[in-house]
């Protein structure tokens, strides 16, 4: 079952590469993501069996990740139905890469062997690079380059981390997660510590934790909206999955405090740094990129704060993904309508494109975590975890960073929503697919915020139990 899930997108990528019409590609893409979504949904009933002697296993953590990926691809594929009506550029490579990315991310979220996990994440880097330079102009190429360089360094470091882990686990003689956990007592602590550090920095590069975040504003700023969604919502969180796996090991080997102290430091950095950068920003996509750094920081902080924080973090993973769908897709549609994403060139959206305007409002509220959007709850959960674990100062700093973030993003987005538009005030017709794709996410996120489904609750608490956090 799982291997189907991995292979299906892979094959369809090959199919997409064939010289077929754009419409066909879009339809194929939609169908594939629908299937994917359905399969993942079926997993909610009962988890599938592991495959390849336990190299590929789906556990609650993986299921959370897969559901996120599935929903993201679904909404993106719907969005593209509308988006590519106006694009002349060839979509062959683009879609193929998206598909390959899908399969590799799936692999990453189901791989139970840390080496395999690393391979998968390396592959995602390779396939996501071409997506960024979809518009082949200087800036996008520069962005791609920075992304490649930094992420490949990250990957190299992660590889070293894997090696160190291997040495630490020389008695277990395998990197399969269950056997690592079983033989946790036999792991040599020094090497484990070394490997943890390299993992945090390495996977941190992919997550875009400060100070390794610098590629994010560039890449997200250049990439088309859909790519932003996939990267901020799914890709970054895949590498967070890597950190989660590490935390499983740490909780077993009594290195939890060591790990959490590192996590808290990098989380704090990733809260502070974007707050410093955001106020000078004018470009909505870049602003969203900064906010995504902020949210990654929140995730890491949550992970560093024991069970309550982890619960918040996992919940926030989902909400953040949904919020990113709303934010980047809306940004994408605005970008396509105005040919710009700078707040001083885009004004009065609500007057010309009422629906997009409303969605933009939703994007703003979801992004900064305002009730009823579920991001509100998960942010509160993480803050509360900070207070429960008696990191009062941390909570205060985090709160003030969030406030600054709020100011920065608000200045940009609200500036776009309101104001006297350059064109005359006639409401224009909008594309149904694009708005629907976004509206889906809006409804879902608000729904979760108003009434958190029991299944979700259980899934998350299972995941927390799985990691053995206390």
């Amino acid at each position, binding site marked *: 079952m799982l291997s189907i899930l991995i292979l299906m997108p892979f094959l369809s990528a090959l199919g997409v590469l064939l010289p077929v019409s754009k419409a066909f590609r879009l339809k194929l893409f939609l169908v594939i993501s629908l299937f994917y979504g359905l399969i993942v949904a079926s997993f909610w009933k009962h988890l599938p069996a592991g495959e390849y002697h336990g190299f590929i296993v789906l556990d609650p953590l993986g299921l959370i990740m897969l559901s996120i990926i599935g929903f993201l691809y679904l909404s993106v594929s719907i969005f593209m139905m509308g988006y590519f009506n106006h694009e002349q550029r060839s979509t062959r490579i683009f879609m193929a890469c998206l598909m390959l990315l899908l399969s590799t991310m799936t692999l990453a979220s189901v791989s139970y062997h840390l080496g395999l996990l690393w391979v998968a994440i390396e592959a995602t880097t390779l396939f996501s690079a071409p997506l960024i330079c979809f518009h082949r102009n200087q800036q996008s190429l520069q962005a791609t380059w920075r992304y490649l360089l930094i992420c490949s360094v990250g990957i190299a470091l992660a590889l070293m981390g894997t090696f160190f882990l291997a040495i630490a686990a020389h008695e277990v003689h395998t990197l399969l997660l269950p056997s690592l956990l079983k033989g946790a007592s036999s792991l040599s602590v020094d090497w484990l510590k070394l490997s943890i550090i390299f993992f945090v920095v390495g996977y941190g590069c992919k997550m875009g934790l400060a100070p390794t975040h610098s590629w994010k504003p560039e890449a997200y700023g*250049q990439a088309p909206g859909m790519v932003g969604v996939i990267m901020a919502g799914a890709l970054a969180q895949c590498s967070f999955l890597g950190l989660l796996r590490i935390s499983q090991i740490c909780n077993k080997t009594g290195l939890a405090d060591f790990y959490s102290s590192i996590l808290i430091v990098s989380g704090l950095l990733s809260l502070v740094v974007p707050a410093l950068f955001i106020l000078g920003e004018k470009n909505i996509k870049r602003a969203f990129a900064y906010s995504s750094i902020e949210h990654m920081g929140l995730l890491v902080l949550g992970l560093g704060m024991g069970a309550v924080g982890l619960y918040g973090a996992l919940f926030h993973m989902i909400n953040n993904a949904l919020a990113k769908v709303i934010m980047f897709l809306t940004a994408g549609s605005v970008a396509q309508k105005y040919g710009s994403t700078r707040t001083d060139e885009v004004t009065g959206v609500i007057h010309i494109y009422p629906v997009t305007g409303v969605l933009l409002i939703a994007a703003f509220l979801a992004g900064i975590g305002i009730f009823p959007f579920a991001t509100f709850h998960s942010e509160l959960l993480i803050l509360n975890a900070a207070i429960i674990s008696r990191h009062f100062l941390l909570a205060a700093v985090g709160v003030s960073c969030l406030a600054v973030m709020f100011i920065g993003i608000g200045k940009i987005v609200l500036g776009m929503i309101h104001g006297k538009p350059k064109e005359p005030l006639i409401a224009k017709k909008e594309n149904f697919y694009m708005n629907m794709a976004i509206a889906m996410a809006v409804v879902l996120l608000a729904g979760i915020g108003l009434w958190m489904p029991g299944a979700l609750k259980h899934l998350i608490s299972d995941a927390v139990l799985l990691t053995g956090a206390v």
Partner: protein
Amino acid sequence: MTTWVDTSCIITVFLALIILSNYRVTAMIRIFALQSFVLSLLPFFLHAYSLSGRDIFIVIVTMVLKAALAPSILFWAIRHVSMRSEIKPILGFGSSIILGVILIAGAFWVSSSLKLPGGKPASDLILPCSLSTVLLGFMIMVTRTRAVTQVLGYLILENGIFLFAVSLFDVMPVLIEMGILLDIFVAVFIMAIVVNHINEEFEKDLASVSRSKMGETF
């Protein structure tokens, strides 16, 4: 055989140091090729008496990838974008040497507290040397402004990792193969450079690209 291993480790680090202090691209590539060649011979030295098929495979693949393919791609790249040397060295010869030495010292310092577990290691120089090669490679990336040379630095870093991987040959099965995957990955993205002419774009000094243009999408 340990002496052979030790010497090859030392040579690797030394060559990395040379590259760090050198600014002529062609020379750098050649030295890199030499370093890769030495590295790719390591499995022989490690298992001189009990060569397995896997050893042969590794040696050949690495030799092809590191010592032949990567350098030639790089040469192709610089020919393609017609650049011979770095425009302006960020660090002078002396300072880069000193920096490199400091990094090496640090690497040894860190690894002094770490014992390679399981039996007696083939050579106790492997860990510090690989670490210092990694750091030196990193340093090269930091001090070079050109895409190609940064890639070169990355390759050095990656050689360091390979060195480490080789030492883990029998600790864990698949690790070296993963290292080789990394090689392929790198090779691919050097292609990316050339195909996308990133370097031509980079002929314009990045610092001169105005804020607005960087901030601009589309």
